[in-house]
């Protein structure tokens, strides 16, 4: 082996130098990694560690377009898979959604003079005047003498505009004005403003669901926030390669309501017309599907804009359909009549003397309530048709206190209907042991020991429309994930059988007569559609006495009577009726025409076939001119 350059002492020096360098590096490493490890790690943890929470997107609240399914039979409607195959659910409409908005502001100290030429564009995009913008920018200096102290901090963030759209913010960014930047915030928006406001509820500014579906279905809607742990550099930028742990966010589910936006709009429009015409204190309209209890529309007057909920008085935010009670009046007569028919105590042709003013009952001599019109002998069918108070009282007496009370409970009075939110109240129903001598004569006509919510009365009528089975009002149809896959489907919720199917069918026929020319509400009739229903006109209690000028007018019914599709309730509280229309807010005057108008529109929209062909239709078919 040749001596090579290794024999040179300089090589020894070089080698020594290299080893010394290595030694130096090793020593430094040892110092950093061993001696100062704890101190440095603490610093790194503080300075570089980054923990970022990724917000989950809150799910949408969607409506259903029942009109798109109108051509289907009811069994087909319940078969969700077929509905999807037909693409009906693709037309679902959004009632509440989440989106990001940008709060745009500026740091006055970062502004450059050369950017001032672009300020007019900035002002235009933000909807400000250039003068306002300049005034805002001038806040660079402390505004008051108190702010001018030694501890005063310079103004670093001046808000220019709140809730700016993403597209506008993109255009602001394109201006490239240094110092102008934005903070993104998630906001809940309600694209249809006041539509179904009492049902949807809202999420407040702090992001807390405060009312309605937003609150009740928050578990499904809110999703689950994700997070990631990583490091950031000296410029506070995330070093993506140092992401150590990451949990992706899970977006909230969409909640599909049974509410139909068209039906909802229809009844809100009708309420608006009622409000303009009769200036009521409040009013409620409820529409539901007869066989399932799905609520197609629920509207109250007065209402409020969901996007401006903070401006709405708390009173207007109450869902009167479940929070307020009223004496149901003559609509309640269905209980006594159904009970007596169901127990076989009477037939539709059984006759009662409705001209009596007094009657003996269990050894007591009772005064019967007065009638609006004098009657003599009326059959059960006529008692319903003409809404005889004395007839209803005699039917209840035939049942007896306990049976009448049992039927009242069975129809759902004095207990919650199961409407899931909104602070539902149970109403008022006294047990027979608390009844006074007159209760058995007054309660059958919906006065005295009974007070119900509009929803309770609606469900009671729904039981007759549904062949005698009382249903819970069902507001939800489905829960779907972000990929529109079905997570959970809600069905109908039967509570109990109240009367037999036969009794329900008989009652439906009797109630049809109410909307006939002989009945109390011919205004509600729709030719060919067998409208069945009952009017109600209740005198309101004012200062402890029944008033003759303040009434609750109602019409609660369903159609077509022989195969009910829709249950519809119109309840108007304290309407002011002009003298030309009689001056008294009868159900016939105020509520029945509204029922008719809504029914006419629902027939078209839900494609409800007539039970009997209108004459014009038959002629057209025979003439073959179609």
């Amino acid at each position, binding site marked *: 082996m040749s001596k090579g350059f290794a024999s040179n002492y300089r090589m020894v020096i070089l080698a020594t130098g290299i080893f010394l360098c290595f030694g130096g590096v090793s020593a430094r490493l040892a110092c950093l990694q061993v001696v100062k490890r704890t101190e440095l790690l603490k610093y790194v943890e503080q300075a570089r560690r980054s923990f970022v929470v990724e917000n989950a997107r809150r799910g949408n609240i969607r409506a259903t377009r029942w009109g798109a399914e109108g051509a289907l039979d009811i069994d087909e409607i319940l078969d969700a898979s077929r509905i999807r195959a037909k693409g009906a659910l693709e037309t679902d409409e959004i009632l509440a959604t989440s*989106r990001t908005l940008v709060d745009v502001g500026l740091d006055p100290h970062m502004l450059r003079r050369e950017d001032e030429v672009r300020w007019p564009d900035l002002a235009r995009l933000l909807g400000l005047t250039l003068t306002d913008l300049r005034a805002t920018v001038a806040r660079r200096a402390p505004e008051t003498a108190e702010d001018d102290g030694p501890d005063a901090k310079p103004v670093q963030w001046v808000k220019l505009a709140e809730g700016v759209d993403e597209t506008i913010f993109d255009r602001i960014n394109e201006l490239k004005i240094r110092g102008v930047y934005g903070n993104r915030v998630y906001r809940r928006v309600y694209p*249809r403003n006041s539509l179904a406001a009492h049902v949807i509820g809202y999420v407040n500014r702090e992001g807390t669901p405060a009312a309605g579906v937003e609150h009740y279905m928050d578990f499904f809607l809110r999703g689950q926030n994700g997070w990631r742990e990583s490091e950031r550099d000296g410029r506070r930028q*995330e*070093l993506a*390669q140092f992401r150590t742990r990451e949990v992706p966010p899970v977006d909230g589910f969409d909640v599909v309501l049974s509410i139909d936006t068209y039906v909802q709009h229809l009844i809100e429009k009708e309420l608006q017309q009622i409000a303009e015409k009769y200036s009521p204190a409040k009013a409620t309209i409820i529409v539901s599907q007869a066989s399932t209890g799905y609520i197609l529309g629920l509207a109250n007057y007065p209402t409020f804009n969901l996007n401006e909920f903070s401006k709405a008085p708390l009173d207007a935010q109450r869902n009167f359909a479940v929070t307020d009670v009223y004496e149901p009046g003559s609509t309640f007569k269905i209980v006594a009549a159904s009970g007596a028919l169901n127990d076989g105590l009477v037939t539709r042709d059984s006759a009662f003397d409705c001209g009596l003013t007094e009657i003996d009952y269990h050894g007591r001599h009772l005064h019967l309530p007065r009638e609006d019109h004098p009657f003599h002998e009326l059959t059960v069918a006529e008692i319903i048709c003409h809404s005889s108070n004395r007839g209803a009282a005699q039917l209840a007496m035939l049942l007896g206190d306990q049976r009448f009370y049992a039927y009242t409970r069975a129809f759902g009075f004095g207990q919650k209907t199961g409407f899931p939110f909104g602070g539902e109240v149970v109403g008022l129903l006294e047990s027979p042991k608390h009844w006074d001598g007159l209760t058995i004569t007054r309660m059958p006509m919906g006065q005295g020991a009974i007070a119900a919510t509009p929803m309770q009365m609606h469900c009671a009528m729904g039981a007759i429309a549904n062949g005698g089975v009382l249903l819970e009002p069902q507001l939800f149809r489905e829960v779907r994930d972000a990929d529109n896959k079905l997570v959970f489907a809600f069905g109908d919720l039967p509570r109990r059988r109240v009367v037999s199917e036969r009794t329900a069918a008989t009652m439906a026929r009797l109630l049809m007569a109410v909307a006939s020319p002989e009945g109390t509400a011919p205004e509600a009739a*729709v030719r060919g559609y067998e409208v069945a229903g009952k009017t109600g006109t209740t005198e309101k209690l004012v200062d402890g006495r029944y008033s003759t000028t303040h009434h609750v007018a109602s019409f609660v019914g369903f159609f077509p009577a022989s195969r009910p599709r829709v249950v519809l309730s119109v309840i108007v509280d304290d309407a002011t009726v002009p003298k030309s229309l009689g001056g008294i807010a009868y159900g016939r005057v105020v509520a029945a025409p509204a029922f008719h108008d809504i029914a006419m529109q629902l027939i*078209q929209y839900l494609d409800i076939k007539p039970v009997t062909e209108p004459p014009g239709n038959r002629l057209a078919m025979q003439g073959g001119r179609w």
Partner: protein
Amino acid sequence: MNKSAANAFINQVLVYTLVMLVFTGSIGFGTVWLRHEISLAANRNKNLRTHLAEVQRHLDQLIAEIAAAQSPDALIRLDSSMRLGLDMPRQEQIQRVPGDVEQQLAARRNPDLFVAEIQPAGFRRGGTR
């Protein structure tokens, strides 16, 4: 140990050291390159996700705007401003046709064909097979 043997040993140590330096240097550079590539890929990934989030934000905005534009109030305003006069049909305007409309139209257009089709099968007296 004589001097030449010691030199040879130092020589060998130097050569091995240099080889090791080159080797570890390569590994070091490789590692740095790899980490750089990981960093680039991670940043690309992050940018893509940022972009996706941005697209999602725009999509959310679009969805909200479409929903607002489809609201009944907005449609009524549009109908009014464009003077379209759109309205739901009235009951009197609707003629309901029972049965299958297509079948009836086809039967009307081709009466012979459809009459023949629905003739019940039968034998003619005295006919031949």
